Structures are given as C-alpha cells and as structure tokens.
C-alpha cells in the first residue's frame, strides 16, 4: 500500500506492506540506515525514533501507525535544539565505543530532556534503562546527558 510519511520534516511516500515495521521502512525503503536493528522485539532500544516527539521503538511500530505523524530519526534530531545539544555532548565526551547503540541512546536522551530538562541521576537511569549499550559506555552516557542538560558532572566519570 502507499503510505504518506513525514520524516524529519520532509514528506515521503512509500509503497510498502502495512505491517512492515517503521524500522525497516526507514532502513530499506527510505535509505536511512542511522536507525539500527538490534533485537526486533523492543528490548534493546537501538531502533528508537520519535513519533510526534515521543520516543518509540521503531521495530515495534507498524508503518501504518506512523502514517500522518511526525517522525524524527537520528538523521534529523540535530534540527531540534535539545537534540543538537545531546549530539554535541556525545561528541565532546567521546561517549561511544562500537557506536552501534548510540543513535538509539541519543534519541532516548533527547526525549528525556524534552520532558525533564534537569533530570536527577535516578531519572536518567530510569529513563535510559530501555537502551542497551553492549560496550557499557554507561558512565559517559550519564555524563553526556548531564552535560547536555547543563548539570555539573558526577564523581569520577573521566
């Protein structure tokens, strides 16, 4: 079926199956590989995107559910002021190791700071616990979120 989408502010029309997850439409039909496939079951967070500003797992979002909504992906998150600050903090603190989960981490972190501009350490851990980093760069993910939020650094996160 033909589905009309708004991705990072651009109108896109795709010809695809209604049950195909948004993740695979982004990766295969729209040639946007920034959103990552990790588990296909909503368990790892690598595929996180925003749907009307809310963080969702795109591997669990049938494309029909995304029609008519504003989709923001890692490719476009920097158009938003909070997203840009998160990206900059990620670069400044050299957060990633393998990098693979980090697009999802950034999308989740951006959604967090939109709802909660000055999160506590518990807020950060609670919100981000849906995103697995297999390399376990968690000390720097915490620090980068605090940096993006303008909060002082915690102890010994070098």
């Amino acid at each position, binding site marked *: 079926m033909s589905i009309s989408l708004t991705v990072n502010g651009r109108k896109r029309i795709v010809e695809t199956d209604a049950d*195909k997850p948004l993740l695979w439409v982004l990766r*295969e039909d729209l040639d946007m590989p920034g959103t990552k496939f990790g588990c296909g*079951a909503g368990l790892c967070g690598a595929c996180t995107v925003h749907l009307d500003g809310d963080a969702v797992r795109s591997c669990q979002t049938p494309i029909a559910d995304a029609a008519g909504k504003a989709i923001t992906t890692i490719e476009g998150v920097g158009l938003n002021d909070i997203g840009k600050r998160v990206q900059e903090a990620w670069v400044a603190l*050299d957060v990633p*190791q*393998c990098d693979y989960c980090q697009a999802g981490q950034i999308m989740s972190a951006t959604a967090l700071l939109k709802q909660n501009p000055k999160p506590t350490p518990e807020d950060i851990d609670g919100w981000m616990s849906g995103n697995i980093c*297999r390399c376990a*760069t968690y*000390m720097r993910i915490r620090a980068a979120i605090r940096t993006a939020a303008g909060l002082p650094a915690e102890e010994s996160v070098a």
Partner: protein
Amino acid sequence: MTDAISLSRRSFIATSLAGGAVLTLDASVVLAATTTTAPSDVLNAFVRINADNSVTIGAKNPEIGQGVKVMLPMLIAEEMDLAWEQVRIEQTDADETRYGPQVAGGSTATPRNWLPMRQVGAAARAMLVAAAAKKWSVDPSSLSTAKGAVIHAASGKSATYASLAKAAAAEAAPDLAKVPLKDEKTFTIIGKSKPGVDVPKIVTGQPLFGIDTRLPGMVHAAVVKCPAHGGTVASIDDAAVKAIPGVLAVTAVNSGFVPEGKSDTVVIIADSWWKASKAREKLGVKWDDATVTGFTTAKYEADAAKLVTAAPQASLLKTGDADGTLAKAAKVIKADYDYPFLAHASLEPQNCTALFKDGKLEIWAPSQAPAGGRAETAKLCGLSPDDLTIHLTRMGGGFGRRLMNDYMVIAGQAAKALPGKPVKVLYDRTDDFRHDFYRPAGWHRFTAGLDASGALVALKDHFVTFGKDGKPIRAAQMAPTEFPAPVVPNVDLGISYMATNLATGWLRAPTSNAMSFVWQSFMDEVAEAAGLDLPEFMRRTLGAPREIPGERVGFHTARARGVIDAVCKSAGWKGREKGRGFGFYFSHLGYFAEIVDLSMKNGAVSIDKVWVAGDIGAHVINPINAMNQAQGCVIDGIGQALIGQKIVQEAGAITAENFGDFALMRIDAAPRAIAVEFVKTDFPPTGLGEPALPPVIPALANAIYSLTGKRHRRLPLEMV
C-alpha cells in the same frame, strides 16, 4: 587527478615482537603527491599526503569499538611529526600481504604494532627529510620536522610535507629496522586523548557498519539454521517460499561448521530483508540431527558432577607431592566452582554483504579476523583466496564473536547463487543468540593446603571442560600457569573432557573471564583460612620481584604487586571490610587489580564504586579511550556475574531467543562510579580491550561474601 607513486613492497623485514612472535611486515609506504583533491575511498598503503597538507593514514585493523582506528594512526602520526588536526583516517581493506596482521583479538594490536607502525611513520618522515635536504642542498641532519613541515633552522627555510611529497615518494624507503624513532619523552600525540574518528558520523546517523552496506541492485538474505548445532539439511520444501513475490532464491549452504558437502543453513534471498525474514515461516526443512539432539545443559551438569569426583583424565601440571603435603598440612581448604556457557550478543547482529561477478567475490565484512574468513570463504565457494576482495566495515561490537566468519562464508555462497547481485545476509537476534560460538562452561574442584605459618604449600585443581580427542576444544583450555600454581611447591592440576555439539569460541578475555573468577575467589577463601585479606595473601605469595616464565609470556611479580598496592592505596583498603572485595588478574599482557564496593538495597546488590589499577606498560596511548575501555570491561564483567547471564541448551539447541532470555547490563545496574588509574612501568605498551575485565568478577563475588557471609562459587551469582 592523483599522482600516486607506489613504493610498495620495497622492503620486507622480520620484526621481533613482545611475546616472541615474529611478524613479517610489509614496509611499504606510499606517499602520493596530489595536484587536486585526492579520491578518499581507496588507500594503497598507510600514508598519503594530500595537496592541502592533510595526511591520510590507513587504519589497518578491524574496528569493533576498541578504538584501534584512532590508536594505530596515532603511532604513525607521532613519528611523522604531524599535527593531529592534519590527520585524516581511513579504514584499509583486508590484505595482510600489504598491511601485516589485521586482527581484532587478544588485545594484540598495541603490542604487535607499537614498533612497526611507528617505524612506518618514521620512514615516511625520513623520506620527506631526505627530499628537503636535496632541495635545499643541506645535510639531512641539519633538518627538523614539526606539524607537517620540514624546517631548516639555520636558514629559516621550511616546507610543508605536501610540497615535498612528490620528491619524497621518489626517495628510497629506509630500512624500517634501522630508521630512527623519536625519544619517547618528546611524544606530542601518544599519551594525549584523541576522540573517536567516527563519532560525528554516528551522532548524525551516517552509514558506518556492515549492516549499513548499501549497493546498487542489492538484495537481502535471511537464514534458517538447524536448531541443534551440527545438524544438517535432510530435505527442503521451499515451494511456498518461492511463490512469494519478491523472493529471488532459496539455497542451502554450509556455514563452515559441518563437513564439506553438507549444509546446515538455508538462505532465503528476497528484494527486502523484512520479506526474506517473514518468508522463513513458510519454509519447510527436515534436519538430520539425531546425533546432536542429546546434548543438554542438564546432561553436562550431571556428567561434570561425576567426572569431577573421579581421577582426572590427564595432567596439566605436577610438581612436588601435592597429596602427601595435603595429608600433613595444618589447614586444608576445599571448594568446587563452576560457570556456564555464555553468548557474545554483540548489538549489531551478524551480517555480511557479497557480490559474485566474473568469477570474483567482493565482500563487505564486519569481521575481526578477515584473513581467516578469506581462506574459509574461498574454500567453501570453490575459489582461490586471491579471487576475494574484502572491504572492512566498522562493527557494532565484536567481543570475539566476529573472530569467527560464518556470516562471510554464508554470504559468499549466497552471492554465488545470484551472480551479479550484491547479497546482504543478516541474522536476526534469535539466529544470533542460537548460532553463536559460545564461551564454554567449566567445573573446578580445588584443594589447597597451608602450613603452620599460613603459607600455601599444596594446590590441586581438577578442571572439567569440553574436549575432543583428548584435547580441549576452542576456548576450553586452562593454562598450567594460572597463578599461584607456578609459585606453589606442590601442585597437581588435572583435566577431564566432555563432548559437546556446540560451537565454542573466544569471548572477550577468553579463558581469563572464567579463570579469574574461580582462582581469585578460591584464593580469597585460602587467604581467609590463612588469616589474611586477599591483597596481603597475594603479596606474600608473589614473593620477591622476578619474572615467572609462562606458556607464551612471562609474569612479573613486581608489576602485579604494583597494581595491587596502587588500588589498595586509592580505595583506602584496610583489610577485610564488609561490602568490599578484591580481585587481581593478569591477562593479555596487562596487570589489573580491582576493588568493588557494594551494598544491599531491597535485597539486591547495588554497586557503589569500583576501583581499577592497571599496568599496561610505559604509555597509555589514547587516555580518553583507555578510560572508556577499562570502565566498559568492568561493567561487562559485572554483567557476566550479576544479572543471570547463562546460555541453556535443550535437545542440542540453545533456548535463548532474545535479550529477555539473556540479560545484558543496563544503565541502572551500572556502578555509580568507576575510578581508573594506570601504573606506568618501563615496559612496551600493551592492549586494553580485555585485561580490565577478569578481576572484577572475583572482586564482586568476594565483596558479596564479605557483606553477606555467603560464598558464591557458581556463575552467574545466584542472588536471593
């Protein structure tokens, strides 16, 4: 256009490396003088000087998140006297005849390349200096270099590398073994933090990984594998699959795990991976697996329990008279330990893209060991290794999983089924969990004897592991040099083997990730019996500063002592205290001592802080990455112990389907703080992808014991 002059293969040298290995290095240094913008997609060797005086450096090793893509070019840039801002980094293709070894494994990149990569940089610098000397008719010794320029102080002349590149490329490449290297005290790049080269790309979603490979006309493949490892295809009913519009081919292939001529994997190729993946539901496969469905976790546990009480099948080490000494020991300590199979669970599922065209195979591979993949893929595709071109992609984690090349072998055969079309093979998460190469389980029965003074005088271990034909299978070994065996006068280490159908493999800090737990936990028990804490027991057992010979590398007791003392000082260790635990381990040439501080909150362990002291030699090449690696190792190790990681087998197959069945560490379980310090010693620098992991596991178990009084002798720790 590019005016590239190849000086390839002018000289080959044999370089003796730390650890005694000998490597033949291709010493080729290509200096390309460019008149316009150089194409940035292909490198012919390590160094290319661009017209704007930027310098493109080839990063030869596969990048799995260990930071090697920055670290190796740092070594070249240092000796070339570049300003880091000039450096552009490009991943090279896989070609060991040109670049030397290209492996991401064993934390070997630093010790193997510390001298060779610096020599490559120094050779390039020498050629630029020689060119400038000729140009100005001065003696090369009167010239210096800095920030990508050659300087003649006496006349005030200077010339950029770009202006000299063409002339330099015509100079003879110097003998790498003799090219002078910088005084280590004058380093300006080594030891200074350099952030990851791909980070700006990842935060903006640009393609980087194997899974992101996109080629014109590319098609997609999903796999169906025999659930029981080692089973093979008996028959396929693919009529319903082939009837699906967009499905292009169904083909049975050999993943490299079953004998040649057999198949253990069915590949469905379609115009989208989503479609190929869904089509699997309609595929009928009968498997020939009767000989492998009897293997289960329950059977291993029952068999191990019997074996461990019997006499060992073979001896690993026998010194003195362990039984006789134990019979008259003042104290005897006995304990059984074990640990399970583990999966790697790299977050990027296994994948590979291949194009078969005109009898040649072009491959885009997220492989930690592409040379092995080349040989295996060529063999199973009926090609010569030279028919394969392998491009290396960044990897979404490796942890040893991608040392195996099943995905490359499968992609090669899938591509051969559809000549002219690039085929991307992608496992889903369940394929990835169920068809891993697992860290093998193991069982240990320890006995230790103390004399009246509390000294360890006798030591026995019966190690029950997996083997075939009287030898351990991959990653199922134990070194007879596990500390403290080499320094105890009466030792008896025995080994017994069980069979398994599972493919086993190297998981980050292989063997060490398990041996650290059993040995350092048991030593904590022995120390307690001796009335000591573990750090003090270790100091006494290590004894005088000396090098103890090992299987491949020696073990310096003074370096061990150095990190033990450092971590105890930083953490304010005051002997046995509730909620604190200590662990030490030496692996991959790195010495690490760690202390875990924890508390119980609502019946669950909460890790408050971990202290790490490591000795990886005289230099920490890239401190910002070193810190991240050490902290990641610590959290990875805690995950293996604390959150239930265990691979379970039923009817020959793995039960884990997704992250709900095999937990990975999440941010809310990570320690609040991890303090890392490096103890610098006068040894060549060594690697950091692994050695910080092993000691945290016993440190954690020992900390729980100190808090609760319950001694955990099994992984994963069963927290009640």
